[in-house]
């Protein structure tokens, strides 16, 4: 189920180089919580969220806020630096080995014809779907969401309207990282395993899915992830699995050329 995987990541949608590490730290926090609480999944998700939220605040303090007047390239380099630091620290902190994540449903499944669907899969999808809805509501209905959208469209105008831009960016980034943490925990549950270096490839997928679906659009990111999964599966089925990622990148470039704002994207979104 490459599809589910991509959706989880697609929802996150931040273009930085630390996001993979955020996912990893979230996943490991969730993992240790799960061990300590003897399988309390809700608590693990919450802990993953909280840890990554905090990490998001740190990222903001180190990589974004000091360079707000400098532009995105400097911030980008800062995220590269932080990413290297966090990744190597993760290996020291969590050990270099892959860790086994217990399955809360003991690998039970139900069959739909020939297809087996594990309860874990259902659970992961349910959580993702719920989060999507919740996020959509937050973004469209609450004051915070509106501030976030205003800031993402035009920082200067938002500041003129009396919004606390810094705060909005901070919270937005923390929220996105928090979600990254949850997705890390969910991915761990989905595959029963987590690894301190799994971040890079996951962040790459998230990145692709996000571009694919459209920057700054939640539905777009989800659909982007979904379509990316389908395309990848097609590529494996039609060609060889070796060419899967090539196809994914070719599609990415094609989408960018044809419609840079992505499938569901709107213009006027400033990347954070």
């Amino acid at each position, binding site marked *: *189920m*490459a599809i589910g*995987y991509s959706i989880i990541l697609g929802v996150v949608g931040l273009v930085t180089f630390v996001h993979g590490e955020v996912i990893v730290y979230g996943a490991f926090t969730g993992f240790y919580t799960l061990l300590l609480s003897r399988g309390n999944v809700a608590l693990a998700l919450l802990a993953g969220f909280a840890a990554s939220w905090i990490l998001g605040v740190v990222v903001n303090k180190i990589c974004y806020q000091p360079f707000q007047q400098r532009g995105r390239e400097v911030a980008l380099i800062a995220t590269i630096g932080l990413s290297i630091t966090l990744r*190597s620290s993760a*290996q020291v902190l969590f*050990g*270099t*080995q*892959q860790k*086994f994540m217990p399955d809360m449903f003991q*690998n039970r*499944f139900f*069959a739909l014809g020939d297809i*087996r669907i*594990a309860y874990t899969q259902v659970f992961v999808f349910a959580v993702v779907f719920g989060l999507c809805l919740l996020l959509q509501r937050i973004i469209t209905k609450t004051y915070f969401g509106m501030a976030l959208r205003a800031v993402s469209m035009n920082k200067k105008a938002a500041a003129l309207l009396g919004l606390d831009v810094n705060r909005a960016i901070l919270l937005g980034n923390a929220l996105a990282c928090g979600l990254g943490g949850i997705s890390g925990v969910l*991915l761990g549950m989905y*595959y*029963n*395993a987590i*690894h301190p*270096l*799994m971040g*890079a*490839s*996951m962040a790459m997928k998230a990145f692709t899915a996000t571009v694919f679906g459209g920057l700054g659009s939640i539905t777009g990111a989800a659909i982007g992830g979904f379509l990316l999964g389908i395309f*990848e*599966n097609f590529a*494996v*089925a039609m060609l*060889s*699995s*070796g060419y*899967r*990622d090539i196809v994914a990148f070719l599609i990415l470039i094609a989408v960018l050329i044809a419609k840079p704002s992505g499938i569901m994207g709107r213009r006027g979104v400033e990347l954070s």
Partner: protein
Amino acid sequence: MAASTIKIGLSAPITGNYAEFGENFQYAVQMAAEKINAMGGIRGKNIEVIVMDSKSDPKEAAIIAQRFAQDPEILAVIGDFTSTASLAGAPIYERYGVVQLSPTASHPEFAPSGKYMFGIVGTQDAEGPFNAKYIAKEYLGINSVGIIYINNDWGNVTKDRFAKAAEENGIKVTMAQPFLEGERDFNAILTKIRQTNPEGLFIAAMYNEGSLICQQIRKMGWEVKLLAPSSVFSDSFIKLGGEAVEGVVTNTFFALNDPDPRVQEFIQEFRKRAGRDPNLHAACAYDAMMLIAEAIKRAGFDRKAIRDALAETKGFQGITGSITFTPVGDVVRKYKIMVVENGQWVIKRDYTRD
């Protein structure tokens, strides 16, 4: 030689994607060195291990090679982990005449690439036919097999040698599909292979990816006989794979339940230091250190003499079994067939004593 210690270089991936394996090297080599030192060292001198982190990046491995090679106090080098990194350092070690003994490089081109290049894990030239003939044909009795392999140098060679040997033994290879390092989701690939309906599936992967593959196979509800090269042979494989890896067949020449007291001593000590069970790689790294110590004991403190002594090694009894170098510097290994039963590795057949 004025120095009071013997310096041995260790080039290993302490950071990066293979950090786990690099760590194993470090623990094992250090243990071997300390053991030798505790028994009085070699010719009155203690061994000192100089560790350099290569990330198993060929470029960095070459830099390390340069650093070790030009330092006259470094008598021999153990490393690197991957065949590509080992090959990258090879020309430099060769030029300076320093032994590079890789515990894990299994690429058939590695050891023959130079006089000073040695590998002890046994190449796929030997393991491929063993897997095909003894495991696939005789033990499992299958007539067709699919292959999923990791797309790096090791995976490719492993796939090629196994596929060739399988065909020679009358086993049809229905399909071979690669996956990239760090991959987490194998469903699409597995579905594709499943459509060709093989009786068995050969999983050429490290234990971590291997366990994921097994789990996803079970989740798909695909009943297929699973076999894998020795790379999956570790406790972590069972810990990670759980029920899904039940019945997976592989081979090894190093087993945790080997009654040999030296093996048990190594395992206990390794557990104490690393907090986990040693795997084949660690054992090979341990033997590599022991081999070099043995060669120095016979040859003295000269790089060229060490090389010659090493090449003459015959019937060295290591914790991974008996080691005799072929003329090119490889070792032809004999294997045990191992199967996961009730969450334990069980020895099914043992060819190492033949």
